[in-house]
Every structure is written in C-alpha cells, then in structure tokens.
C-alpha cells in the first residue's frame, strides 16, 4: 500500500468501478480499495440467500426457498436501457464480454388501480386499453411525429420549435389528455416528476426515441438485465481496471483521507499505512463530512413464488406507477426478475418496489406497488439516505459520487460517472484508448 498513485478509488460500487476502469484505461496508476470483503458495495448482489435474511435480521429461510447459493439478490433494483448510456459504456470498454443479458419481458404502466402494457408503436397504441377511441388516434399521431422527428431537419418539426417551445406545448398541439401525458412522460420518457413539462420539448422527444430505439434492439421491452444479477456489473468494470494495471484491495478499512496544504488531498490512511495520491474518487460513505442529505429512497425486496398477476406470466417485468395516479410527486417503480436470470432458486421471483420518500410513513407510500404483486412470501424494507457532494471536488481533488437514486434504470448513474470523470481529468473519456486486442502492448 505504501506507494504513490495517480488516483485512489474508495468503494467498489458500480460508479466507482466504472471510474476506476476509465482511469486505468486512460493510463492512470490506480489503487482501488473497499472496506468490505466483497466487491460491489451497495451495488452487490447478495448471495447466498441466508445472508440476505441475516442482513435484515430475519429468521433463516426454510427449505422451500431452495438452495441459498442459487440466489443473487440486488439491493438496488435497476434495469439497463438497451440503447442507453450504460450499454454504450459496456460496449466501448469491452466489459460487455464479461456479461450475459436477458431482455426484460414486459413493460407496464399503472392506471386507475390496474396495469396495462406500455404502448410504444402505432399498432400498440391503437390496441391499448389505456385510452379511449379518439385519444388513441391522437396518441398515434403523436408517436408518428416523434418517430419521424429528426433534430437536424426542421422540416420534420412540423411548425413547432422543440428547442424553444416546451413539452406541454407539444402535448397541446396533439391534444393529448392528462392521462396520456402521464404515461408518455413517465413510462416512455421515464421522467420521475412533472418538471419536464415546462422544459424544451426536444429533451422529451429524445427520451421517447431512446425508449423506442432500445425496444427495437432486442424486442420485448427496452430493458436488459444481466445474468446472476446487477452485482456482475461492478465486477466487470473492476476486471477492466485490473487488466489495465489497477491494484485491488478488499477488506481494508479507511481511517483517514489525508489532506495537505491548500486543502488538496495527498493520500489515504489505513491504520499506520498511508498510500499517497493526487486524487481520490469515492462514494458518499467514505466522506461523510463532504456530503449532504438530499432525500431518502425506500426500496422493498419481495420474494414471491409466482409471476406478477396480469403480466401474462412474464418472468421479468417493469411496472411504472406515475406519480399523479397515486397523488404523489414522484413515481413508484416495480421491477421483477426471476430464476431465469440465475438470481433465485427454481420457481422463485424477486420483486422490488422503489421510490423517493415523500412522507413520514414511507411503507404506506409503496402500498400501490405491493398491492400489484399478489401474495408475498417474504418482504425486506430498507430506507436509505440519498447523499450528494457539497462541492465539485476541484479544489480538494476529492471527487464524490451521488448515492443511487430511485430511478429504474442506469441513465442518471452514467451521467454522474461521466461528469465526475470530466471534473477529475478535465476531459471527456476517450474511448479510443481501449485496446480490444490482446498483445497490443507487446508489439
């Protein structure tokens, strides 16, 4: 440990592992430390099942749960958008070769106490039970407009300037009602609240295109999920970092981030050992005095032995409950994965409900989600504080990631990582630095 590094990364959560990989690939000498014995921090998938029960102080699972080793339970539920930022990062870095994926089978939206398939093309729009006959036609026209829209071709804008006019204006242009606006904004554009209505429409159009492009890539839904759980993702990026020279240390407590003159970081201390460095990258848990609480997220892990009712027995599903449907200010997300992803024993499913906490009684807030699941065999609730850094890190050279939010996919995760990388290195990540072929360094 007593060496000098360009960067020390603390915590092996997904964000830190992506950063570590990008830094190593960029030629930086990286030391990557975790206080835990395992990789992944909060992004780890818990295995075996007994450990999950212990973590939540529940009595050990009985034999009906099958072999504990067959379970890999995520603590933070998310899916990958097939055409989203994380998939781009996986492809560009080559980490995709360490992973296998499955398409999520169904994507649903909640309306008036029941769920409907999210309509994404003209055909589905006309067949959907979400809208009345006339509204369907209006929505179809809207979808065609978005499909044909080209940001560089004003002819396709149809007398509407999406860069200045807001999204509410575009909805009004097509005469879409509140309800249609609701599932368009929340289930297609995947906004968490309604602030987007007053933002330039181009942002929402881009997001809807992301949704339909993602859907086009693999079929059933725009979402992907890795075999053996999300914990495979940080591990893949950790391997990338190691292959490019990053050094890994687990089970190493961090006692101090050593700051020198002018408040700049000079190293990291564990016991009596000090590793010198020019920069530190870490998650909020390593620097509690440099982050502030922004809110809370509630996540509920439910073990069930059946698919979610009314989803055509899908073995994986996402359901979005738009805020307005349940008189809230943020959406509730329900995700389901199962034994087909090697995350549960045969016949078992893991449902997760998550949302941003809005009241004193968060468990009541997620009830609309729980009610959709049918009988639940075991339920684990966690409420975690959501932290953000108090500064950009440019002065101290300590760059801190935000906690994982309640969103159902990794888009915000990647934006945070790319922003931190840019702050830390002063440049965008250069993907051309990755050598895909073995032996490049030998020639």
């Amino acid at each position, binding site marked *: 440990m007593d060496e000098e590094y360009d960067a020390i990364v603390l915590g092996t959560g997904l964000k830190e592992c992506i950063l570590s990989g990008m830094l190593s690939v960029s030629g930086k000498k990286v030391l990557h430390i975790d206080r835990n014995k395992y990789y992944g921090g909060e992004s780890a998938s818990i295995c075996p099942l007994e450990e999950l029960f212990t973590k939540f102080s529940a009595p050990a699972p009985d034999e009906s749960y099958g072999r504990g080793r067959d379970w890999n339970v995520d603590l933070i539920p998310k899916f990958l958008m097939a055409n989203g930022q994380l998939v781009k990062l996986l*492809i560009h870095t080559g980490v995709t070769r360490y992973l296998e994926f499955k398409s999520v089978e169904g994507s649903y939206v909640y309306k008036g106490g029941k769920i409907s398939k999210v309509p994404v093309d003209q055909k589905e729009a006309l067949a959907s039970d979400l809208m009345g006959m006339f509204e369907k036609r209006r929505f179809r026209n809207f979808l065609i407009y978005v499909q044909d829209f080209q940001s560089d071709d004003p002819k396709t804008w149809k007398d509407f300037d999406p860069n200045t006019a807001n999204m509410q204006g575009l909805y009004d242009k097509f005469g879409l009602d509140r309800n249609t606006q609701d599932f368009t904004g929340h289930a297609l554009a995947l906004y968490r609240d309604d602030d987007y209505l007053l933002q330039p429409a181009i942002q929402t159009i881009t997001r809807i295109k992301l949704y339909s492009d993602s859907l086009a890539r693999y079929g059933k839904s725009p979402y992907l999920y890795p075999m053996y759980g999300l*914990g495979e993702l940080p591990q893949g990026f950790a391997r990338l970092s*190691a292959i490019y020279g990053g050094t890994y240390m687990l089970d190493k407590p961090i006692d101090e981030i050593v700051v020198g003159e002018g408040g700049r970081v000079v190293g990291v201390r564990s016991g009596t050992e000090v590793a010198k460095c020019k920069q530190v990258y870490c998650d909020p848990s390593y620097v509690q005095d440099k982050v502030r609480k922004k809110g809370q997220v509630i996540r509920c892990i439910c073990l069930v032995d059946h698919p979610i009712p009314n989803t055509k027995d899908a073995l994986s599903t996402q359901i979005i409950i738009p805020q307005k449907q349940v008189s809230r200010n943020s959406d509730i997300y329900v995700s389901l994965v199962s034994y087909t992803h090697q995350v549960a024993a045969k016949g078992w499913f893991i449902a997760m409900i998550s949302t941003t906490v809005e009241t004193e009684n968060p468990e009541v807030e997620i009830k609309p989600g729980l009610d959709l699941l049918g009988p639940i065999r075991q339920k684990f609730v966690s409420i975690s504080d959501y932290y953000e850094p108090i500064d950009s890190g440019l002065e101290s050279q300590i760059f801190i990631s935000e906690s994982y939010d309640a969103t159902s996919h990794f888009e915000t995760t990647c934006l945070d990582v790319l922003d931190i990388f840019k702050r830390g290195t002063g440049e965008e*990540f250069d993907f051309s630095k990755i050598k895909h072929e073995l032996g490049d360094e030998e020639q």
Partner: protein
Amino acid sequence: MATTRIPEQKVILCGEYGVGKSSIFRRFANNTFVTRSDRQSTLGLDHYDKIYKVENKNIKLQLWDTGGMERVASITSSYYKFAEAAILVFSLDNPASFHVLSQHLLDIVTYAENAKIFLCGNKEDLVNNVSQVSESEIESFCEQCHNLINTTYKTSCKTGVGIDEMFEDIAYQLVQSNRSRIELQSMDSSSFKIVGPAENFDDDSCLC
C-alpha cells in the same frame, strides 16, 4: 453471428500470484515466454480464443487470465461464472503454492460448480526431477478433494514442455463430457452478449 457456431468453452486459470498463470496464458495465446514475471507482464491479458479439433469436431477453448487481481485482493466471483473448466496452477518449486490450493478449489466449487477441474504443476524446468512437491502429495491431495480433479499435468512455460498437450487433453475431455450439452447450447439463445454496432456510438456528443 449467424454463422455456424463453434461451441465456446470458458477455461479459467486459478492459483497463487506468481505461479505462472500469465505465462501459461502467453504460451496458449502466442507461444511466447517472458522471463521477468513482474506485474507489468500481466497487463492487458484478458482472454484468448483458440480452436481445437477433437474427433473431427471443432471446439473453441477460451482461456481467461485473472488480471492480477489475486495479488492483494480476491478475484471477483464473476471471473468464475460460465466457466466450463478451471486449471488449478501451482509451482513445482514452491510447496506453499501447492498447499494453498484447497482454498482456490473451494472458490471454483462455489462459483463455478459445473466446471471440470484440472491440476497443473508449473515450472518443471526449475526442479530437475527433484520436485518440491512429491507425487504422493499430489495424489493424496486429489484423493482428499473427492476426485474433483480430473487430470494432473506438469508443464514448463519456460521451455514450453507440456503446455500444448495439456490444452489438447482438456479440449478432448470437454468434448467427451459436454457432447450433449454443446449441442443443446448451440440451440439455446435466450441470454445473449451485447455486441455493437459500435459505429453507432462513435459520435462523441452522445456521451456528454
């Protein structure tokens, strides 16, 4: 992707730091040997595909190196996932690297329970017939682990002795034991790897 698929078999190298895993990898990949076994030599080594012909059938061995993660930390569990075979490597001139194998074996059994396991005593050139690890020790180790070890090999990456033979034999054994599974695998496409088209993403603006 849609061409006739040659079944791909992931083979992982396991064992202590410094026993020559990366050297075995280099011999496998491009039949070279680097004397200085410093950290530098493991850089950039990820995995390498090589096709073997067994009884007129092609089989692709995909050998994986650890990336040096075992030097200070442990290897990620995902390293073991999807492995069809694991080679437990120790150094014939280093008894400690042999006696610690049970720990590595435990990891393999835990994270890659379907993998066939092979034992490889490396650096045979260094011991001149007086191995620091005796035949009987190796035998009793294999017995203790309930015959989980399929075959034992002795190799020297420096001279190249035994390397080709080892991989040819592993390819043969995998074909024998997986015959039916390989055929099934070529039908099954429910899970998949994400592949490009990377050219779609070359536009830098989409990442900022």
